[in-house]
């Protein structure tokens, strides 16, 4: 049995909580900077006024004059999702988070441990945040389990087909073009999709369509991919004044990455992926995940992958953070066969600086960092930061 916990509109609830607004009002998630100007998820009050996710901002405001837009807070959502995942893992489950508002896990080994499926589901429900309209469902395979969670029901093996049949076909994980094709063929429910001949589905919708067809029949053989609980390393830098200058942010990011790589090397590991997070001066946040082509503990190579992402931050930053898990192999990053002429000099300088740091502390070795060199206020042009060798 697969148990799924569901917190509907979780990212919207987090954003509304952060903005200290009331759920009963017509509110929608605003557009993400750099993305098309359409709104995201919206509250039931906004829905009643005709506002729908994907509507243009202008059209949404025209439909509902009282509509408030809240800035998406992907950073807070990620933290909240991680917290719920960790709570569920505390029950002994190997959890797969799904779409930022669902968490699935196999209950087979846990039912006896917790004294029955109802008790396990009650404890799962208790792991969700209070007031998030959390629901828990269970079914033999992942897709019916996720659908059961929407209604908060348990679907047994012999009930799956009947349970799925009346559900809308839009629930199938298909590309938009395939959904349009289903709509144009007049196929509105999972039952209608399930009734199609196998060969016809394969012909018109390909392998993805075949998988969706199996899901609609309750025969999906997909397995969960639970996450491996990470050992995160996080480095944070606070700015006394909001920083919008890209060069200053790059220097700050380089320092954070050096610390992360240093800690990974200290653990005898390398970094596979990195999450950059920024808290902006208007209270919003920005987050970007950088997956490296190969695991490395070389700060220069990690910086090359991360630097272009900083240009996407849409507002001055008050806090920059970098998080990674040291999941890579220990000997990653050995790329160079021939030593460069300056390597020895750099290595000696780095060793000397490391000794000064060890003897006198980090604050005794500082470097000049450009903040806003064009500023008319001298104190805002430069700052001192930890020296990077």
């Amino acid at each position, binding site marked *: 049995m697969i148990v799924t916990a569901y917190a509907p509109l979780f990212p919207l609830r987090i954003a509304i909580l952060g903005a200290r607004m009331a759920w009963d009002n017509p509110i929608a998630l605003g557009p993400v900077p750099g993305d098309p100007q359409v709104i995201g998820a919206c509250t039931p009050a906004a829905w009643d006024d005709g506002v729908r996710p994907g509507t243009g901002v202008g059209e949404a405001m025209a439909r509902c004059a009282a509509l408030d837009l809240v800035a998406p807070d992907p950073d807070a959502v990620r933290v909240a999702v991680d917290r719920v995942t960790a709570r569920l893992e505390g029950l002994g489950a190997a959890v797969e988070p799904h779409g930022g508002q669902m968490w699935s896990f196999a209950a087979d080994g846990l039912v006896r441990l917790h004294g029955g499926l109802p008790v396990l589901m009650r404890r799962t429900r208790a792991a969700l945040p209070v007031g998030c309209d959390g629901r828990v469902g269970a079914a033999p395979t992942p897709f019916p389990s996720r659908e059961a969670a929407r209604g908060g029901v348990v679907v047994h093996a012999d009930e799956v087909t009947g349970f799925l049949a009346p559900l809308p076909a839009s629930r199938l994980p298909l590309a938009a073009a395939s959904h349009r094709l289903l709509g144009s063929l007049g196929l509105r429910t999972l039952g209608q999709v399930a009734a199609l001949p196998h060969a016809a589905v394969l012909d018109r919708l390909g392998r993805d369509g075949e998988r969706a067809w199996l899901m609609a029949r309750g025969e999906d053989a997909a397995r969960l991919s639970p996450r491996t609980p990470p050992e995160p390393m*996080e*480095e*944070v*830098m*606070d*700015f*006394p004044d909001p920083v919008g200058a890209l060069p200053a942010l790059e220097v*700050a990011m380089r*320092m954070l990455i050096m*610390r992360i790589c240093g800690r990974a090397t200290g653990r005898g590991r390398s970094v596979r992926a990195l999450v950059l997070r920024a808290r902006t001066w208007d209270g919003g946040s920005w987050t970007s995940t950088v997956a490296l082509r190969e695991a490395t503990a070389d700060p220069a190579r990690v910086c090359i992958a991360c630097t272009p992402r900083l240009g996407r931050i849409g507002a001055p930053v008050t806090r920059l953070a970098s998080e990674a898990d040291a999941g890579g192999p220990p000997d990653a990053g050995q790329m160079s066969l021939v030593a460069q002429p300056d390597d020895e000099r750099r290595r000696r300088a780095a060793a000397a600086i490391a000794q000064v740091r060890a003897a006198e502390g*980090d604050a005794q070795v*500082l470097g*000049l*960092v450009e*903040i806003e060199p064009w*500023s*008319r*206020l*001298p*104190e805002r*042009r*430069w*700052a*001192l*930061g*930890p020296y990077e060798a």
Partner: protein
Amino acid sequence: MGTRSLRGIADPGPVRVIASPGGAPHAVITDGRRRLVVAVRDSWRVQDRWWTDAPVDRSYFDVVLEPGRPALIYRETSGQWFLHG
């Protein structure tokens, strides 16, 4: 988790300045000593960050103090003088 922050340089600090009736600095008292202004190399006005809660309105003087020490001082609209470190 490690937290680090940048340390400011050239942060301005309050200073006592004896000004002429026209507003130009005549002498600066630093380290308990009165140093005459030998020359005013340049002066300019900075109005900045007016869109924030802490707008900036400064009259800057790039001066040379005796015996030849350069200094950057400014006066705020409140009349308080500051010396950039």
